[in-house]
Each structure stands twice: as structure tokens, then as C-alpha cells.
């Protein structure tokens, strides 16, 4: 029983990490807090679903297309909306929030909810680990999360674009003087973040069905993980995902499922009081803003 709880806690952490990584990446690189993140997650899910059910192509094709579409959406959002308010953090927040809202509520209005709105699992099998039944999809989630983190690490350390990302994240001005186009990189950062959201949607949604209110849930979870882990730090996202993932699962198993949200909120409040910028967050010292 205990082992089962641990396994599900791990799975929960993986899901959280998958959801938060895109948001964290976008913010860490371009400083843009993409409040339309949850909307992109749902958008990708519906796009996949449409491709699957209207054109009959296999999921292995539909998912990548959906991911690409989301990336295009992100790039478009940056090019046509965010670019005009670049630098004014407050306007960026409102703009992305407005877009995210419009998209999610549109889906809500269209009423595309129900059991038939779901994405297929990749491999339909289950395993017995110790005395718990675990389905393949969940195991896949953990694997994918791990691969994603490793892949991102490799990307940002070994490819030109990835290194450019890190450069801009560290010091935008210097990067500019070295010829990196900060606007182009920011657009890519938003686009990548959206792509990661889409990726997460494609593997996590199969566990249930698509519902627009899930979009808000995803945004909340991503924000919670980023606040605790620290905006801009991948290590922080991992740590925070584990923390919240395990805390939630353990609360659910040993206290009651009602208290999981309280635990998360308490965790956020405690972190805010002790180390407001999150575990690995770097709050820029005043002089860096001078």
C-alpha cells in the first residue's frame, strides 16, 4: 500500500513537472509570464482530438501536429500582441491573461465536454508493481517527464539555440551586444513554452477527458510549482514538483483527499514567507536593476 502511494506520488510529481516546465522556460528566458498557458494546453488537446476524429489519422501523427500548431499559436501571440507591449511587464500580463481567458471561455461556451472528448492512451496495458496496478500511460508519463528534463538540459547546454536561450536568460543586454536577437529569442521562448504545454496535454489528457476548466487547473498548478521552485529555474521546478506531488499524494492517502489543496496553499504561503522568490529562484539584487 505504501509502495503504491509512493508510485502514485511519483506519477503525480511527473505530471506537475510536465505542466510547469513550459511556463517556467518561457519566463526564465524571455521574462514573459504566459498567462495563456492553460489555454494553450486545452487548445492543443482539442486540436489533437479534432485531427483524430475528423481526419482519422493516427495519434502518433495528430499529436506532433497539435504540438506544432500550439507553437505556431505561441509565436503568433508573441508577434502580433506581445511584441507591441514588450518590456511593459504589466501590460504583458494583462494581454496574455485576456487571450487565455478568451480561448478557454470560448471552449466552455462551445460546450465540448463529455466522455467522448478524450485522447487515446499510447499503449493500452497495465502492470502490477508490488501490489498496485499501474497502467502503462502513467509509466510513460514518468518516463517522458524524465526524458524531457534531460532533453532540455542537453538542449540548453549543447545546442546553439539552447545556449542562446541561456545567454538571454542570464543577461539580456550582453546577449544583445553579442548579436543575439532578443525579440526573436523571446518569440521562440514563448513558442517553445506553448509546445511544451501541448506535449504535456497530449500525454496527460488521456488519463481523463478534456474539459476547459482543466485549463485553469493547469495554470494554477504551473504557477504553484513555479512559485515554490523559483521562476526560471528548471531545478526548482523538479524539486517543487516532487515536493507538491508527494505532499498531495500523502495527504490524500493518509489524511483525506479534501486537504490536498490546503496543503498546496500552505506550501505556497510558507515558501512566500521564508524565501519569497522560491527555492532556487534568483531575486535580482537591486543593483542588477540599476
Amino acid at each position, binding site marked *: 500500500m505504501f509502495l503504491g502511494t509512493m508510485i502514485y506520488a511519483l506519477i503525480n510529481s511527473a505530471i506537475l513537472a510536465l505542466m510547469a516546465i513550459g511556463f517556467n522556460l518561457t*519566463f526564465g528566458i524571455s521574462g514573459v*509570464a504566459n*498567462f495563456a498557458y492553460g489555454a494553450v494546453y486545452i487548445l492543443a488537446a482539442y486540436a489533437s482530438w479534432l485531427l483524430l476524429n475528423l481526419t482519422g489519422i493516427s495519434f502518433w501523427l495528430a499529436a506532433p501536429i497539435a504540438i506544432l500548431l500550439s507553437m505556431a499559436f505561441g509565436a503568433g501571440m508573441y508577434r502580433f*500582441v506581445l511584441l*507591441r*507591449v514588450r518590456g511593459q*511587464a*504589466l*501590460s504583458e*500580463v*494583462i*494581454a496574455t*491573461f*485576456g*487571450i*487565455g*481567458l*478568451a*480561448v478557454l*471561455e*470560448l471552449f*466552455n*461556451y462551445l460546450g465540448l465536454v463529455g466522455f467522448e472528448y478524450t485522447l487515446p492512451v499510447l499503449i493500452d496495458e497495465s502492470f502490477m508493481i508490488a501490489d498496485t496496478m499501474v497502467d502503462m500511460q502513467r509509466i510513460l508519463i514518468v518516463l517522458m517527464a524524465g526524458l524531457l528534463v534531460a532533453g532540455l538540459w542537453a538542449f540548453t547546454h549543447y545546442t546553439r539555440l539552447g545556449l542562446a536561450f541561456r545567454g538571454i536568460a542570464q543577461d539580456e543586454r550582453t546577449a544583445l551586444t553579442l548579436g543575439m536577437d532578443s525579440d526573436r529569442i523571446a518569440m521562440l521562448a514563448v513558442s517553445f513554452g506553448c509546445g511544451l504545454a501541448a506535449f504535456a496535454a497530449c500525454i496527460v489528457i488521456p488519463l481523463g477527458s478534456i474539459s476547459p476548466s482543466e485549463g*485553469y487547473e493547469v*495554470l*494554477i498548478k504551473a*504557477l*504553484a510549482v*513555479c*512559485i515554490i521552485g523559483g*521562476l526560471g529555474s528548471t531545478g526548482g521546478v523538479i524539486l517543487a514538483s516532487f515536493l507538491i506531488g508527494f505532499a498531495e499524494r500523502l495527504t490524500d492517502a493518509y489524511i483525506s*483527499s*479534501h*486537504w490536498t*489543496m*490546503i496543503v*498546496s*496553499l500552505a506550501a*505556497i*504561503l510558507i515558501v*512566500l*514567507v521564508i524565501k*519569497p*522568490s522560491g527555492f532556487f529562484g534568483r*531575486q535580482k539584487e*537591486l543593483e542588477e*536593476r*540599476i
Partner: protein
Amino acid sequence: MSRLNQRRERIDRGIKARAGDVFALCSWREMLYLLAPRLIPVVGFLGLPLVLDDYWQRVLLSVAVFALLAISWDILSQSGMISLGQSLFFGLGAYCSGILNHYFGWHPLIALPAAALLGGLVSTLFLLPVLRLRGVYFSMVTLIIPLMLVRIVEATKIFGGTEGLSGIAPLPSKWVEMYLIVAVLLGVLFGFRRMLNSDYGLVLKGIKDNDRSVINAGINIYWFKTQALFIASSIGALAGAFMTHVYMFVGMPVFALDYSILPIAAAVVGGPGTLAGATLGAVILVPLSEILRGIGGLRIVFYGIFLAVFIVGLPEGLFHYVERKYHQFERWVEVE
């Protein structure tokens, strides 16, 4: 006529120039020019309840409440804090007033101001840790907390849980309800407008514009931000407390996203940076939202689109545009 050797010139209207000095007192026309912008909302809000039917009176009530939330948002935004969760203040105020009345039997007219201050205090305490961080954190936390509070109330069933607290005492009469909120709105609008235009307001705006400079002037910016937060959240809490007594009920819906979104849309559309703009936005959007009630959730889609479009395309908002037209006119002149 070729526009190549012409330019557009924008100058004050004659009446503005004449009304700009003590000579305005010599003429009724000039005095009216100065007073009209201030009289319109006052006369409007005080007079409309007398001529509207019940349904539209309710709408006016709603306008006043959302105007207060929009003003609260605008005060925060002028101090450099973008709140994505006005429903936090609204909800906390609503619950405080409901609890004071339901469990302690306080009379609504006493519970109201108490709940406003208490709600403001709790909100400020929640947000105190993030005041030192980048503005984005403030937005994130204001977004999350009300959404989490809803789930907590649902899960732990405190304060009535999913059913909420009903049987909350109403205000003495329909007219008291109406004129109380109108009086509060006008008081808040003109009073805090004055405050924001004073030197104190200048410091707040300075904090938003260039906080390093304000720190360098020996001012504790976090204390000032805390003050602005307390003021704004108390106004929001007051709105929430008021509605508790209008509906005679308080429950999870008070933390609904609607109470967060509409005020932002109202302030952004009406004119960010002015309380009058926020009020104007509410006056436009709330009745519009009522008329469009038939299309249900599609309204919020429009709010979202409005938000994005206005903040990018017309950041000055409608109020500034109208104000400019009122005071100045444009014409083409020859380039010398």
C-alpha cells in the same frame, strides 16, 4: 489640397483657455464647462435610481459594485501592482461580513465597514511577502489564492461549505441599499482621485515608474505599497461585503473569476491610470454584459478579447480619448 506640407495641430479649445483661470467665474458657460464632467456622474448616479425600474436598478447596483472593484484594481495598477484576483478581496470581504452577521449577529451597517477593513487586512497579509518581488509574482499570487480558497471551502466545508451561509440580514431598505453604494462609490471616486493626484499619489506612481529613484529619495517603497494595497483591498472587500447583504447569502461563488475579470476589463477599456476611467468602463461594460446575458459564457470571451485588444491597441482607454476631445481639437495647418 495636398497634405504634404501640412501638419496636424492639437490645441486647447477656446472655452478651456477661458475657463482656465479665475475668469471662469464670470460666465455661466465656462463654469458649466468645468463642472459638467464632475456633475454628470454625480447627477447620474444620484438621479437614475429614481427613474429606473426594478430590473435596471439592480443593474445600476451592479455597475456601482463593479466600478468599486475596477477602482480598486486601478489604484493597485497605478502603484505598480497588477491584480489578477480582485475576487480575492471581494470574496474575503463578503465572507467577513457574512460571518460577522451570521455567527455574531452584527447589524449589517456595522458589519459592512468592519468587513471592509478586516477583508483588507487579511488580503494585505496574504500578499505582503510578494511585495518585495517582481510584479509578476503579485499577479500570480492574486490569481491563485482565490481559486485555492474556493476549493478549500468546498473541501473543509467551513463557513457553510458548498451551501454557503444563507439568511444573512439585509440592509434596512431598498433605497438605503441603492444610495449607500452610490454614496460610497462617489466618495471613493472623488476622494481617492484627489489622493492619487496629490503628492502622495505622485510617490505611488513614482514607485511604479522608477522605484530605484524613490528608494534613493529615502522613502520606504514597501510601506507605501502596503498602504496602497490595504486601501485597494479594503475597497474591494467593501464591495463584497455589500453584495453579501444584497443577496443575503455568501458562498463559494464570491471567489468566481467573473469578479476578477470584469473589473480589469472595465479599467482597461475605460482608461487605466484614472479612477474616472475605471468607473466609465464599468458603466459601459456592466449594462452591456446584462444585455448580452443571453449569450452566456461568450461574454467572457469578449472581455478577454477586449482586454488584449485595448491594452495593446488603445492603452490610454476611452476616458482619456473622450477627455482629450473635450479639452482640445485638432486641425490641419500649413507647415512654415
